[in-house]
């Protein structure tokens, strides 16, 4: 297979976004948006298949010789995340359509540009190019969040300024990397941090910028402050995509640039544990569904970093597995919150109650998703967490494993709080009044219903995804194949 298909996940959405600004008609926009992302999903699947067969497709943009060209590369880790991201974008577009939030002619275009940025950031093997793609992803997200955040204009300001600050720090990091190493190609930077403190410091600044984007404690404050203020479908879109690009960058840079150096792993572990605990404690105290879910999003990022901090084959495999199943589950939960808000006007925990009686299907989707999030067998979340704990115990890291377990329990507490306040109990009079109003409930629930299937399927039959995650983790633990492909 020619490496040229690697350009498609970036080029197709961008072209479609331009075309969409000329098109009128909501149905047509939705059709084109979903078709493009389905195409990207197909390309991602092909790339993943190549990757699993042991080949890493690469493309050098602009026909420049090696060392000068910007390289796009799809190892199994990148290809897997491109597939998952495409699924999430598809689901978000459908959810926005059934919520009626794609009425603005620019909505679909903005989502497509954002998606192009995400795909590009996942595929590029060049630090500066990564910065550019992250900006391509962030600029539409600024617009989507600010336009949707009618409730609190300050949220938009916080989001944009924090995003800009993180980008500036990241850019300074890239400048320092170029200054000390003379290249920004990840392949040529492999193991660079081992060459001396100056290299490690430059890499640390890059990681710092990405830690803000990934909402790692202590740089998490912006996320629970801003996400619940965006409109429901925008939160659904952001939840699975934006912070995950930050997490992806941390994993990739630590695996390649730092070559998984032993001496800095404790920093990652400390950040991972702090992120887990602070996030989940915040979630317990929130008063709206999306508030709880946003803080919980921070907490779950900690689990992925936990696997990275162990940096063993099993730890990385579990981290990749966890990441994939968790973005799906999280998106389902945000869709449930969005549906409650859409049907009952508010997702406040004290404003609703007894939804189980009126919305049995919504309640069961939420139940499956939150049990998977908390890590209850036989759902996919359990497999991911079990892998992470096994990896920690194999490394004799008993205290971190205990913290991870306790965080799981607190996640369950936070989600049970939502369950008991929103779904359990006696319906309030306003709920009963609104429940009688005829609405397209099945359409609202369809995207969530489709996305919750994998969390059951990957729990009962974890083997296929686990194999893919193993292959992706193998490429992170031993980067030589990636480096060869990228510097060729």
């Amino acid at each position, binding site marked *: 297979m020619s490496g040229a298909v690697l350009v498609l996940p970036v080029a197709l959405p961008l072209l479609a976004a331009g075309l969409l600004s000329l098109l009128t008609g909501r149905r047509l926009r939705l059709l084109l948006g979903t078709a493009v992302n389905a195409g990207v999903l197909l390309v991602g699947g092909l790339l993943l298949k190549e990757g699993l067969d042991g080949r890493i497709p690469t493309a050098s943009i602009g026909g420049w010789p090696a060392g000068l060209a910007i390289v796009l590369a799809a190892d199994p880790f990148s290809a897997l995340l491109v597939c998952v991201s495409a699924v999430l974008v598809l689901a978000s577009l459908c959810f926005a359509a059934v919520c009626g939030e794609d009425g603005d002619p620019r909505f679909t275009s903005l989502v497509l540009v954002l998606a192009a940025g995400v795909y590009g950031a996942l595929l590029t093997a060049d630090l500066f190019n990564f910065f550019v793609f992250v900006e391509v992803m962030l600029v539409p997200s*600024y617009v989507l969040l600010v336009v949707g955040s009618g409730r609190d204009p300050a949220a938009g300001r916080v989001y944009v300024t924090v995003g800009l600050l993180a980008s500036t720090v990241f850019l300074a990091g890239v400048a320092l990397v170029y200054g000390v190493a003379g290249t920004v190609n990840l392949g040529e930077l492999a193991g660079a941090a081992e060459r001396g403190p100056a290299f490690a410091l430059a890499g640390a600044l890059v990681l710092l910028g990405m830690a803000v984007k990934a909402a790692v404690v202590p740089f998490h404050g912006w996320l629970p402050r801003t996400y619940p203020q965006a409109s429901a479908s925008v939160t659904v879109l952001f939840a699975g995509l934006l912070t995950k690009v930050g997490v992806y960058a941390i994993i990739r840079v630590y695996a390649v640039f730092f070559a998984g150096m032993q001496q800095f792993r404790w920093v990652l572990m400390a950040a991972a544990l702090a992120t887990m605990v602070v996030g989940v404690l915040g979630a317990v105290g929130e008063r709206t569904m999306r508030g709880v879910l946003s803080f919980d999003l921070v907490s779950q990022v900690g689990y992925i970093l936990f696997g990275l901090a162990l940096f063993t084959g099993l730890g990385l495999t579990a981290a990749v597995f966890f990441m994939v199943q968790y973005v799906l589950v999280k998106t389902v939960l945000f869709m449930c919150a969005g549906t409650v808000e859409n049907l009952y006007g508010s997702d406040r925990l004290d404003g609703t109650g007894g939804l189980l009686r009126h919305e049995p299907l919504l309640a069961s989707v939420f139940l499956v998703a939150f049990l998977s999030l908390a890590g209850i067998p036989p759902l996919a979340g359990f497999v991911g967490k079990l892998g992470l704990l096994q990896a920690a115990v194999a490394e004799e890291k008993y205290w971190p494993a205990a913290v991870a377990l306790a965080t799981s329990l607190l996640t369950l507490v936070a989600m049970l709080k939502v369950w008991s306040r929103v779904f359990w109990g006696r319906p309030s009079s306003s709920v009963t009044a609104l429940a009688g109003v005829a609405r397209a409930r099945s359409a609202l629930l369809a995207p969530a219903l489709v996305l919750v299937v994998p969390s059951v399927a990957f729990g009962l039959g974890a083997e296929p995804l686990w194999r893919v995650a193993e292959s992706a983790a193998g490429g992170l633990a031993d980067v030589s194949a990636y480096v060869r492909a990228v510097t060729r």
Partner: protein
Amino acid sequence: MSAPVLVGVLVAGGVFLILRRGMVRVVFGFVLLTHAANVLLLASGGTDRRRPPLVGKADPALMADPLPQAFVLTAIVITFGTTVYLLSMIHVRRSEERAGGPSG
């Protein structure tokens, strides 16, 4: 020696302005801060060789590194766009306040 001093001054000014109240000051703080990052990027190619990087125009040993210049150009465009967006956010908010619309 001038580049590190410039970066230091720009970062100090930028941080000072970002920590102040008022969105316009924050925006100007970001202008200074992103300039600092741009100068840093430009300096990363080495500040001793300053001849134009065009084949035939200068001795290759004295040519400036063209790659950071391309980086900086890209970064300037991005930060310029974001700055304009921030300023337009302030403008929209002000006109909303004047019209008695949502405030916060």
